[in-house]
């Protein structure tokens, strides 16, 4: 799977980091989310889907396959 993160939309709530801290992080400089792993293994699908669902800015998209 491939993860697309829209940094422009991100509001820095940190929900993605709480859901999957091996995939998402927050930049120290401005708190905006960054991807640690753009192509995580399928075993992380559940956690990444949770991150996408919880993101208050709906800034995370998942391309499966």
């Amino acid at each position: 799977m491939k993860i697309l993160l829209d940094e422009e939309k991100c509001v820095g709530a940190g929900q993605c980091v709480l859901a999957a801290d091996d995939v998402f992080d927050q930049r120290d400089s401005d708190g905006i989310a960054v991807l640690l792993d753009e192509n995580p293994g399928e075993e992380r699908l559940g956690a990444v889907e949770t991150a996408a669902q919880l993101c208050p800015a709906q800034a995370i998209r998942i391309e499966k396959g």
Partner: protein
Amino acid sequence: MTAPALQIARECPYAPPAQHVEMRENGGVSRVRLPSGKEAWAVSRLDLIREMLSDPRFSSDRDNPDYPALTTEPPPPPSAGSRKLLIQLDPPDHAPARRAVISEFTIRRMAALKPRIQEIVDERIDAMLAGPRPADLVEALSLAVPSLVICELLGVPYTDHEFFQTRTAAILHRDTPPRERGATYAALRAYLTELVCGKVREPGDDVLSRQLAAGADTEDVVALALLLLVAGHETTANMISLGVLTLLERPERLAWLIADPARMPEAVEELLRYFTIVEYGNSRVATADVELGGVLIRAGEGVVSLSNTADHDPEVFPDADELKLDRGARNHLAFGFGPHQCLGQNLARAELDVVFTTLFRRVPTLRLAVPADELPFKSDATIYGIHRLPVTWDE
């Protein structure tokens, strides 16, 4: 035909009013009459509230005369020259203002703050145990801990805590007359203006000084200080009191919870959902005609979010009226949704985790000093909670 009056106070501390549940079961978008006599829409389903809070055509500007206030009289007009709070800003002004301060509240920053939160909690518990029994947990712990933490973060002297705590309570009390509410805001603004001007001359190691150093002007920093101070102590305080009460009332589940500290984060999340204390805080006013849940909302109409009712929807949270400490659901509205979702949510999570873990470990005989049905719940405030929580313990 006039719309039914929106019931605002809870009948039961642990469940949404029957009227709100009925609205949720009847489509989730209902016409209601507000205490002011004006009509508005009430939205009571989680998916619809999320949709509304994500749609920029709904404004969160509380100075808009059409914003659905829950007070009987309209709020006072904004004082000239004072900047809007972050929670009132719409696009395109909101994003840059929020971005300027997010870095202060990241998960990493809050994790780094946890040892200091632990010290503060231990000091407050020491002081409570050294004092008379019974004690009011609200004063001894619930208000003290988040107030001390936000004071340190902002660089506000804690010695002034009575000043800002009583004024915050007056602002949040629904029956405070508009003139008095306006004067209370003005007093807080004047206090913070003096504080921020002091930081211009003599910067400290705090959020407000860093905002000034980054180029923010004094008025913007005052508005930020006002929001963070007001939002930063009363909300968490109410969750501490409600959480302690709820866990004391369920000794078996409390024993299960404290047997493994790793269970606490999920339990905190469930308590946040269960109480959803900022139950109307995500209200908006439409700036265009928008269809929501099959209902046409006209430009200029107010929409009240019934977030607590949405968070008790059994279709979203099975057995929603039951407290399940291991539920593991974070898709609640306790911190709102959309670009305004609570900036300090990870501070609140950290504070609640440390307080509950430490209090029940250090004071295992803690118990209520009055029957639970005599507790004064805050059915009269815009943020739910308890006014006083008398507790006692064995020496």
